[in-house]
């Protein structure tokens, strides 16, 4: 039996037990899922500050949705549907807040680049996004710049930045949805 199939079976059983109120199974399950979510997001978005927040929000969503899991169905499609959806929701609602990345000032906009930024740029989602969308998402959602600040840096109008953010998130959703998660 492959590792994926093993996980599938174990998570399904653990969730079945959790639905019956088994605390220990549930704690084990959430612990394992938390690690998987963090690794999943890290490989898709790079080391952005949002990952821990996203992971915890996804765990809360899984907790709220646990009554909709059917042990006769596969666990991973159910699980990853929640993770993808919550991630996009969080990315969309992400307000401007300063992160460690801001200190790096997203150098490529200013002609230099930092190791953290390189890693983010190489991440699956950001590398697949068109440069126009990638820049606005990195500035507004990762580095925490306001729309006005991002517009000034990119030499665009605020409305153009808003449109690009909206389209960028739509593209991100497509990238995540089209991805073939091992089932």
């Amino acid at each position, binding site marked *: 039996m492959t590792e994926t199939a093993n996980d599938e079976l174990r998570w399904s059983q653990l969730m079945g037990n959790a639905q019956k109120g088994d605390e220990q199974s549930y704690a084990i399950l959430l612990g394992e899922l938390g690690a998987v979510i963090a690794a999943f997001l890290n490989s898709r978005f790079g080391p952005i500050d949002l990952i821990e927040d996203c992971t915890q929000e996804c765990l809360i969503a899984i907790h709220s949705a646990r*009554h909709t899991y059917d042990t006769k169905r596969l666990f991973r499609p159910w699980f990853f549907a929640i993770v993808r959806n919550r991630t996009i929701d969080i990315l969309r609602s992400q307000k401007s807040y300063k992160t460690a990345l801001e200190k790096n000032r997203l150098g490529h906009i200013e002609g230099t680049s930092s190791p953290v930024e390189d890693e983010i740029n190489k991440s699956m989602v950001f590398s697949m996004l068109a440069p126009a969308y990638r820049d606005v998402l990195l500035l507004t959602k990762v580095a925490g710049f306001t729309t006005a600040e991002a517009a000034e840096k990119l030499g665009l109008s605020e409305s153009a930045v808003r449109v690009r953010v909206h389209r960028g998130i739509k593209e991100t959703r497509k990238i995540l949805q089209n991805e073939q998660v091992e089932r």
Partner: protein
Amino acid sequence: MTHRNRLDLIKELSTNVPSVHPRSSVLLPAILWFSLSWIYVISLSLYLGPLRPNAIKSLITSPQFAFESTVGFISGALFCLIAFQESIPGLRRQWLVYLTYFSAILWLSCYVVGLWFPALEPSLIGKRAHCVLEAYLYSIPPLSVAYLIIYRRFPLNSLQAGVLTGVGAGMLPALFMQFSCMYDPQHMLTHHIGPITVAVIAGAILGVVFKKKRKLK
């Protein structure tokens, strides 16, 4: 944003975790809702007025009429199914969504074609004075019930679930008016299919309101 420790969160979520009654089935509630909604629409419609004379007989005498009615019925059932599928994460099947959209386009096309080649001779026989209002009356209660059932599961995209439910609920009266109101494809498009947009808007509002409610929880 959260800045707590993940282990604390897991401990918090798993301590005294209550047992839950799984609500993971979709087909059964969808069939139940669809059947009961039809009973509601037919009963209320017959209470408020009779069927158009020879409306049922037209199903046999006019294959085109039978075809557009059948396509509409299938499309309504498919919308109901995909709306309920939205309530369970990961259950949505894209091919089914495409099939549903295709059936809806085919259904609408029947009436557009009918503007030039109507299935039955257009006439005012059986006209209901307030068919548009009746359409709202028949669609809003089933819509609210359906959305409540969906909300009690876990729709990841509340707005989409609301819109799909709105289309499904709005199609019920539109289809039945085919038999209980006058036959004229133009009247069908403007007075029976047109009100579906109101059901869709109502569904979208329910989706947004319930999404906010869930966030507050």
